C-alpha cells in the first residue's frame, strides 16, 4: 500500500510531516553525520538573530522529572553568518529548510524576514523564547505585539510564515487566531514552559540565567491540549510540538489536530529520533490501513 504522507503549508509542499524543532537539531550539518536528514519533512534552524548572540551563562541545562530546563539564550552567529557560511552548506539537503527568526523588536523581525526572503523554504517566527531579556516570549504573550510582529514579517516576505507560539498564556487559541488573521500561513506550538530549579545546598538556581524553559515528555499532555484547542479555533495548519518521543505520541498530536509535528528534545536521547518516529508513523498507518496522513488529522473522537 502506498501511503501519502505529504502535506502543505500555503504552497509549500512537505514530503512528510516530520520536522525537527528549532534549537534541537543545529542546522542539520552535525546531524548529517548520523542520519540522512534529507529523509525528513523539513528542518527548522536554531533561531537566528540580526546580530550574533553569545547566549546565557552556564549552566544552561538541568534535568527535571521526565524533562529538562534549558536557558541557551538564543546563542547564534547572526543572520550574516547564516546566509554566508551556513545556508550554502545545507541547501543541498533534499528537504525544506525553515529558518527560525528572533528579533528584539518588530523591526528586527522585519529585517530578518527581508534578508531571508527567497533564501529558504519558509520562516518560523519565534515569538516565544522564554530565555531572553528583550523580546522573546513577551511578544507571544500579548495579542497586539503578536499582531505587530506578524504584520511586519508578512510585509517583508512572500515565503510561508509560521508563527511559533508560547504556551505561557491564558488562551493560546486567541494568539493563534490573531496570527491567522494577520497573515500567518501556519502556527507551531508549543515552545517551552517557563520553569525554575533550585540547588538547595548553594541556594542558587540550577541555571546560570536563573529561569529556563521546560521541554520533554513531562510537557506532552499540556502541549497536546494546546494543539487541540488551537486546531479547533483556526483554519491554517497547526504544527504540533512538545514532548513527542515516539510514534504513539506523534499520532496523538495528529489526532488532536496537528498537520505536521516537530521533534525536539527527543533528539537528545536518540539522535535518530525524528527518523525513527517517521518510520513508526508509516508503520502505524499501514497497519491500520489508512492511506494518507491527512485522514487522521483532528480525528479525536469528542463525545
Amino acid at each position, binding site marked *: 500500500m502506498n501511503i501519502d504522507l505529504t502535506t502543505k503549508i500555503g504552497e509549500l509542499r512537505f514530503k512528510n510531516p516530520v520536522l525537527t524543532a528549532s*534549537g*534541537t*537539531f*543545529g542546522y542539520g550539518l*552535525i*546531524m548529517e*553525520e*548520523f542520519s540522512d536528514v534529507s529523509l525528513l519533512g523539513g528542518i527548522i534552524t*536554531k533561531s537566528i538573530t540580526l546580530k*550574533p548572540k*553569545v*547566549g546565557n551563562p*552556564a*549552566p*544552561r*541545562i*538541568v*534535568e*527535571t*522529572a*521526565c*524533562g*529538562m530546563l*534549558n536557558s*541557551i539564550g538564543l*546563542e547564534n552567529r547572526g543572520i550574516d553568518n547564516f546566509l554566508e557560511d551556513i545556508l550554502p552548506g545545507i541547501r543541498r539537503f533534499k528537504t525544506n529548510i525553515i529558518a527560525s527568526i528572533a528579533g528584539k523588536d518588530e523591526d528586527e523581525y522585519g529585517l530578518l524576514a527581508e534578508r531571508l526572503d527567497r533564501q529558504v523554504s519558509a520562516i518560523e517566527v519565534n515569538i516565544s523564547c522564554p530565555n531572553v531579556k528583550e523580546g522573546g516570549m513577551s511578544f507571544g504573550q500579548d495579542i497586539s505585539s503578536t499582531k505587530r510582529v506578524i504584520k511586519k514579517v508578512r510585509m517583508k516576505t512572500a515565503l510561508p510564515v509560521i508563527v511559533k507560539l508560547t504556551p505561557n498564556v491564558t488562551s493560546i487559541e486567541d494568539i493563534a487566531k490573531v496570527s491567522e488573521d494577520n497573515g500567518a500561513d501556519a502556527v507551531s506550538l508549543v515552545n517551552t514552559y517557563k520553569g525554575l530549579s533550585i540547588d538547595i545546598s548553594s541556594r542558587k538556581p540550577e541555571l546560570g540565567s536563573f529561569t529556563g524553559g521546560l521541554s*520533554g*515528555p*513531562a510537557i506532552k499532555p499540556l502541549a497536546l491540549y494546546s494543539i487541540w484547542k488551537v486546531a479547533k479555533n483556526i483554519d491554517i495548519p497547526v504544527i504540533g510540538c512538545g514532548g513527542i*518521543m515516539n510514534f504513539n505520541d506523534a499520532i496523538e498530536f495528529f489526532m488532536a489536530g496537528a498537520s505536521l509535528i516537530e521533534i525536539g*528534545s527527543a*533528539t*537528545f*536521547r*536518540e*539522535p*535518530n529520533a525524528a527518523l525513527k518516529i517517521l518510520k513508526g508513523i508509516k508503520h502505524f498507518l499501514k497497519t491500520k490501513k489508512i492511506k494518507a496522513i491527512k485522514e487522521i488529522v483532528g480525528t479525536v473522537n469528542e463525545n
Partner: protein
Amino acid sequence: MTNIKDYPAIVISNKHIDDNIFLIELLLPGFDGKAEPGQFIMIKIDETYDPFLRRPYSIFECKKEKVKILIKTVGKGSKMIAEKKRKEEMDILGPLGNGFPVDKNNYPILVAGGMGIAPLWFLGRRLTKLRNKFSIIFGEKTTTPLAEEIKKTFGAKVFFVTDDGSRGIKLTASAALPLILDKSPYRKFSIYACGPKGMLKDVINFGSGRNIPVYVSLEEKMACGIGVCLGCSVKRRGTDGFLTVCRDGPVFKGEEVMI
C-alpha cells in the same frame, strides 16, 4: 567524528573498585574500537524517561567492540548505571568529542585529580603501547583503592599526592608539577590534566608561566553530547563567546578556555 554510532551495548562485567567507584566493561557490537584518549560516550540508561537525559562518561579503555568506563556514583543516573549487572543493556552513543593530541617531541605529564584519572588512564595506556615514556601525577583527598589500581597498572610512572598525606606526599596535584619537572631529565613537556576546576586552573596557570602546552579535559552538564543543543558551553578566552564542551572539547588547550 565520522564513526559515531548509537550502540545497543551489553554489560560484560561490573567491578566494584571502591565504595562509590565502579569499573564497567561493555560490549558494543560492531564497534571498530577506534577512539582517542579523551573522547567520551553518552549512556542512555534505560527506556523510561526518568532519568531523561543520557549521561556522559570518558572512555577508560577500549579495544575492538569493548569499552570500559570508570564511574563514580554521585546522583540518580550514575547510581542506576552502577547497579547494572552482567548481561544488562544500555545504549551507548560514541565515540564523541576530541581526544588529547600527542605532541611528538614533548615528554607527557598526566595530572589527574580523583576521577579525573578516567580519560588519562586511557592516555597512559595508549602512550605505553606507543612505547612513549611519561609520568602521572595522581592526587586524591585521601587515598582510595583506586590509587592501588593505578599503581598496579602504571607502577613507578606514578607520583602519588594526597591532601592528608595518606599516600605519597601531602600536596596538591598541581603543586607537585614543579617537583616532577625540575627533577626530570627532559626539557620539553606537555601537560594533560583532568580533575576538579580548581586543579585545572592551577595547572593552566603553571603551564602558561613556563610556556608548557597544557591540555585539559572539561566537564559540563550535557543534553545532546554532539553539539546541537548548545547546552554545554564554556567561555572562550579572550572573546565573549562560548565553545561547546561536547564537540569543541572535551579536551581544550589551556589558553582556549575560561574556567
